[in-house]
C-alpha cells in the first residue's frame, strides 16, 4: 500500500488514494492534523502530536517543534538522554502517522509519497528520504508541495486548459508554482520559493513586538513561560486576521499581562516579511514566461495563507483578485494522496500525467577571460537551468584555462548567483587531461542528468582520450550515509513509543499539565483532577476510563474557555 504524507513544519497529515478518491486518516485523537511536535517523557517514552504540543509548555526542555527547518543540517536536539537529528525527529512523526494509517487500513504500509517544499535543496530532499527510511518505509517519490496542492485542486475542479499559480505559505516555508492543466497533463512551468519564510516568522514577529512592548527581556522568561506566550500569540494571530485586532490578557508567572495590537500595526511590522514574498513570485512568473493576465486562477494554500495580508500582497502584485482558497491545511496532503495513487498506477487516475521541474540551477565553476585576456575564476555556469522539466539531461563543453594544465576540476554547484561563492557546492569531479595538447584540443564535455527522484549525476568525457568520469551526488557532507542510517534505525527501534491505544489518555494528561502551568489560580483543582484521572487509569477498566476522560475533558474545556 502506498500512502501520501504531508510532512509539515507545524502539522503533518497522512492519507491514501482509494475508490472514493483521496482519503485522509485521522489520528488517535480523531483529527487529521497531527502537530509536528516530538516530546520524550521521564520514562524515555516518545510522545508525538497534540500531547507533545501541550508538553511544549509543561516540559519545554523535553519537547521540540519546527524541526523541519533544520532538515539537511546535522543539528542535534537533546530530549532527555537521547540526541535527535532532524531526520530522526521527522521519522518519529512519520512513524506516528504510519501507525494511524495502519490502524485505519488494517494492513501494513511500506511505501509512501512525501511532499516537500518545491524549493527544498538537494540536501533537504535527501534528509527527507532518510527520515522515511528511518521510519521503516520506502519513499517512492518526493512531490513538491505546491504541485500536490495543484493536483488536488485541479482534479476537484476539473479545470481543463487552465493555468494557475499556487501560492503556498506554510508554517516554515514559502513556495510558488505556476502550473498548467490540459488534456490530463499537469505541467509545472516554474517553481520558486524561500525555505525560511512561513507562519512561524510572523509569530516570531508578534512575540518580539509583544516582548518589546511589555519589556519582557530574554532572561525574564523561562522556556515554559515563553511557550505559554507563544501559544497565546498564535491564537492572537488568528483573531487578528478575522477581527482586525487582538488582545492577550493573562497571568504569566507573577505578572498580569495585557497587550493589544491592531491589524494596521501588524501589517506595518510584517512589511519586511511581505517584501520577501515578492521575489519568488516575480521569478516564478518570469520563468514561466507568463503575463499576470494569462493566469486563470491564483490558489492560496498553507495555513499561513489565511492571513489577510497575504491575499492583499498577491492582489497588489497581480492587479486583480481571482483568488481561490482551498482548504489550506489539507490541500497538500490530498495532493500527496493523489500522487501516491499515480505512483501505484491506480486505474482511476490513468488519465493523469504529472511533469514537474527542478527549481534551481545546477552547474559548474568556470573561469572567464576579461578584455585583457586574463582568466578570472569563480563564475557559475549553469548546465541545467532552473525550472527545466525533469527528467532532464544537458551537456556543455569546457576547455582548460592554462596550457599544460594536467587536470580540470569540475566543482558542482546549485544556486542562482553568477558567482559560485554565493551558491551551494554539491561536489567535485577531477578529470585528467593530456598536458601536451593545446587548449583547444583538450575539450571536456560535461553532462548533468537530473532524474525524476531528484538525483543528480555528473558525467565528464575527455574528447582527446575518450575517457569518462562519473560523479553520482547521492551523499552530501553533513548528511547521514547508508551505514549511519542503519545504525540510527536500530537506535530508534530501541526507543519506546507511547502506545497508540493510550493516546487519548496521554493527550488529556498533557493538556491538564499545560493548563496547570498556565492557570496559577486553578492549580489545586487541576492537581486533584489529574490525581483522580490517574486513579481511574490504574483501574484498567476501559469503561471507567472512558467515562472519566469525558468528564475530565469537559472540565478542562470549561477551565480553558473561562
Amino acid at each position, binding site marked *: 500500500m502506498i500512502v501520501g504524507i504531508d510532512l509539515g513544519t507545524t502539522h503533518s497529515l497522512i492519507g491514501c488514494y482509494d475508490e472514493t478518491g483521496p482519503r485522509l486518516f485521522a489520528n488517535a485523537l480523531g483529527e487529521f492534523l497531527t502537530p509536528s511536535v516530538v516530546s520524550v517523557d521521564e520514562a524515555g517514552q516518545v510522545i508525538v502530536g497534540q500531547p507533545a504540543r501541550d508538553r511544549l509548555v509543561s516540559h519545554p526542555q523535553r519537547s521540540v517543534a519546527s524541526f523541519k527547518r533544520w532538515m539537511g543540517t546535522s543539528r542535534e536536539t537533546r530530549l532527555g538522554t537521547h540526541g535527535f537529528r532532524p531526520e530522526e525527529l521527522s521519522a518519529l512523526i512519520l512513524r506516528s502517522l504510519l501507525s494511524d494509517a495502519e490502524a485505519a487500513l488494517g494492513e501494513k504500509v511500506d511505501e509512501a509519497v512525501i511532499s516537500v517544499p518545491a524549493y527544498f535543496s538537494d540536501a533537504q530532499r535527501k534528509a527527507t528520504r532518510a527520515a522515511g527510511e528511518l521510519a521503516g518505509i520506502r519513499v517512492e517519490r518526493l512531490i513538491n508541495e505546491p504541485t500536490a496542492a495543484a493536483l488536488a485542486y485541479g482534479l476537484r475542479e476539473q479545470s481543463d486548459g487552465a493555468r494557475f499559480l499556487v501560492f503556498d505559505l506554510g508554517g516554515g516555508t514559502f513556495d510558488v508554482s505556476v502550473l498548467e492543466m490540459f488534456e490530463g497533463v499537469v505541467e509545472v512551468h516554474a517553481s520558486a520559493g524561500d525555505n525560511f519564510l512561513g507562519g512561524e516568522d510572523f509569530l516570531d514577529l508578534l512575540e518580539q513586538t509583544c516582548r518589546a512592548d511589555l519589556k519582557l527581556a530574554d532572561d525574564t522568561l523561562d522556556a515554559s513561560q515563553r511557550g505559554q506566550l507563544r501559544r497565546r500569540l498564535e491564537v492572537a494571530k488568528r483573531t487578528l486576521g478575522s477581527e*482586525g485586532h487582538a488582545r492577550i490578557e493573562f497571568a504569566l508567572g507573577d505578572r498580569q499581562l495585557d497587550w493589544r495590537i491592531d491589524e494596521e500595526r501588524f501589517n506595518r511590522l510584517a512589511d519586511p516579511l511581505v517584501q520577501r514574498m515578492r521575489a519568488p513570485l516575480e521569478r516564478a512568473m518570469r520563468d514561466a514566461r507568463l503575463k499576470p493576465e494569462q493566469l486563470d486562477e491564483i490558489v492560496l494554500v498553507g495555513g499561513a495563507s489565511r492571513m489577510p495580508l497575504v491575499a492583499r500582497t498577491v492582489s497588489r502584485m497581480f492587479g486583480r483578485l481571482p483568488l481561490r482558497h482551498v482548504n489550506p491545511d489539507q490541500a497538500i496532503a490530498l495532493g500527496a494522496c493523489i500522487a501516491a495513487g499515480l505512483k501505484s498506477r491506480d486505474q482511476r487516475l490513468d488519465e493523469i500525467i504529472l511533469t514537474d521541474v527542478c527549481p534551481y540551477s545546477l552547474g559548474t565553476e568556470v573561469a572567464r577571460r576579461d578584455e585583457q585576456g586574463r582568466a578570472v575564476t569563480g563564475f557559475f555556469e549553469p548546465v541545467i537551468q532552473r525550472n527545466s522539466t525533469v527528467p532532464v539531461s544537458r551537456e556543455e563543453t*569546457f576547455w582548460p584555462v592554462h596550457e599544460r594544465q594536467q587536470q580540470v576540476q569540475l566543482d558542482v554547484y546549485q544556486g542562482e548567483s553568477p558567482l559560485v561563492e554565493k551558491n551551494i557546492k554539491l561536489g567535485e569531479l577531477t578529470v585528467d587531461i593530456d598536458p601536451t595538447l593545446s587548449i583547444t584540443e583538450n575539450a571536456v564535455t560535461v553532462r548533468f542528468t537530473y532524474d525524476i527522484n531528484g538525483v543528480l549525476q555528473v558525467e565528464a568525457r575527455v574528447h582527446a582520450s575518450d575517457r569518462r568520469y562519473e560523479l553520482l551526488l547521492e551523499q552530501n557532507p553533513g548528511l547521514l550515509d547508508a551505514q549511519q542510517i542503519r545504525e540510527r534505525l536500530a537506535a530508534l527501534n530501541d526507543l519506546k513509543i507511547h502506545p497508540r491505544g493510550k493516546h487519548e489518555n496521554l493527550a488529556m494528561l498533557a493538556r491538564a499539565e499545560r493548563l496547570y502551568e498556565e492557570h496559577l489560580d486553578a492549580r489545586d483543582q487541576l492537581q486533584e483532577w489529574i490525581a483522580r484521572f490517574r486513579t481511574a487509569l490504574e483501574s484498567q477498566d476501559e469503561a471507567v476510563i472512558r467515562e472519566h476522560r469525558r468528564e475530565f475533558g469537559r472540565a478542562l474545556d470549561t477551565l480553558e474557555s473561562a
Partner: protein
Amino acid sequence: MSPFELLGLAADADERAIKRAYAQRLRLTRPDDDPQGFQQLHAAYQAALAHCRAAAVDATAPPHEPVREPSLPLSSAVPAAAGAADLPAAIEPPAPFRFDLAAFCSAVFAQASGGDAVALQAWLAGRQELWSLQLKARVGRYLLNELHEQAPPMPVDCMETLLRFFDLDHALADHDPLAMLQLTRRSRLAWQLQDDDEDRLGARLELRTPLQRWRAHWVLRQLQRPFRWSRVLWLGVNVVVPERIADFVAEASDNHPEDLPETIDRTQLGFWLAAANRQRVTRPRLILGGVRSTGMLLLGILLAPLLSLLCTDSIAFRPMLIVVGVVMVPSALWALWMAWSALVLWYIEREPRAARKFVVPLLCAAGVVLGAVGQDGPGLVLIAPALWLSVRRYWYHHASRYAVFNSGYVRLALLLAIPVLHAVLNAGLGADLLSSGDVIAAAAMLAWTADLRRQPRGQASVR
C-alpha cells in the same frame, strides 16, 4: 525530424493541437518509464510551442517596439484596497497615470549615491507602483541599461540591493557576469573617489590612519588635474611618487585602472602607471630618469663651488670632479640597466621573428670569432649576454614547467657561473682545446634551439 513531425502534426498546427498531441504521446512515454523518450518529446513540444507563439507574435505585433520608453502608461498596477478577511469583489479602476522611467532612474541613483543600502531597500519597498509584476520587469530592464550607460556612483552593497530587488543578479539573467563585475567596480569607484574632503574620502575608502587618508586625498587631487609636463616632471623627481600613485590606483581599483571615474585625467593616470611599471621600459620612465640625473648634475654643479670654498686644497676643480663623478656613475649605470632591460624585454616576450630570431646566434658567432683571434675578454662580453637572453627566453615561455628557475637566486647563480667556468677552464687542461667562450656559446645555442622547437600555440578559449 522536426518537432512538428515528432508530434505527428502539420507545421501550421495551433497551440491547442500541439498540446493535445503532446498529451497523447505523453501517455506512451511517461517521464518515469522512459526518461530519454520523454526528454525528446518534451523538447519537441517546447520547440513547437515556441514556433507557434513566435508566429502569433509576428502576425499581431506592430513591426517593432521602441526599445526605450521614457514613460509607460499604467492602468492595472495599483495597491489593492486594504480590506477585511473576505476579499473585495473587484478593484476600483484607478485613473491612468504615466510612469516616468527616466525620472525614476535618477531618483534611484540619487538614493543609492547616499551609500546606505538599508535606506535604499526601504525606499524601493515603499514604491507602490513597483508592486505590479509587469511594470517592475520593464523598469528593471530599463534600469540595467541606464546602469551600464551611466555607471552611477554607489557602493557595492547598494548595487547588490538594487540588482537583487529587480532580480538582475542571477545566473540566467543573460548578461555577461564580467560586465556586471565591471559595472559594480565602476560604480563603486565613482562613489568612493568623489571630490570630497579628506575624512569623508578616507571613510569611503575605509582608511584608518590619518597618514593614509592624507595620501589618498593627495593622490586623488593630483590625478584629477589636467596633465601638465612642468608639474609632472617636478613631482616625478621624487622617486617614491610614481609608485605611491600606482599603488593607490591598483589597490582602489583591484588592478582595473580603466574603471576609474571620468574625473580622473587619463593622460595623467597613464603617465604615472607607465612610470611605475618596472616590467617595461617606457617613455615616462626614461624621461623621469633623465630628469632626475640632470637634476642631480645641476645640483652637483651648484654645490661644487661651495665645496671648493670649504676645501683647503689649492686645486679647486677636484671636489667638482668628485661630485660630477658621484652623479654621473649611477646615472650611467641606470642608463645601461634600462638599455639592457629594454633588450631583454624586446627579445623574450614576443615570438622570435627575423632579426630577433638571430640575435643569439649572431652574438655567439661574433664572440667565438673574437675568442679565436685571441680576444677572449671582449668575446665573453658578447657571449655572456647571448646565454642570458636565450635562457631567459626559454624560462619565460616555460615558466609553468620550470617554476624553480623563476627564482632570482637561480639567475644570480647562473650569472656567477660564467666567470667561475672561465677561471676553471683557464686553469685546467681543457684550455687548449676549448675556451670558456666556446662552452658558453654552445650552452646559449642549446637554449636557443630548445626554445625554437617550441611550437607557437593558439589562444585559449575559455567559457
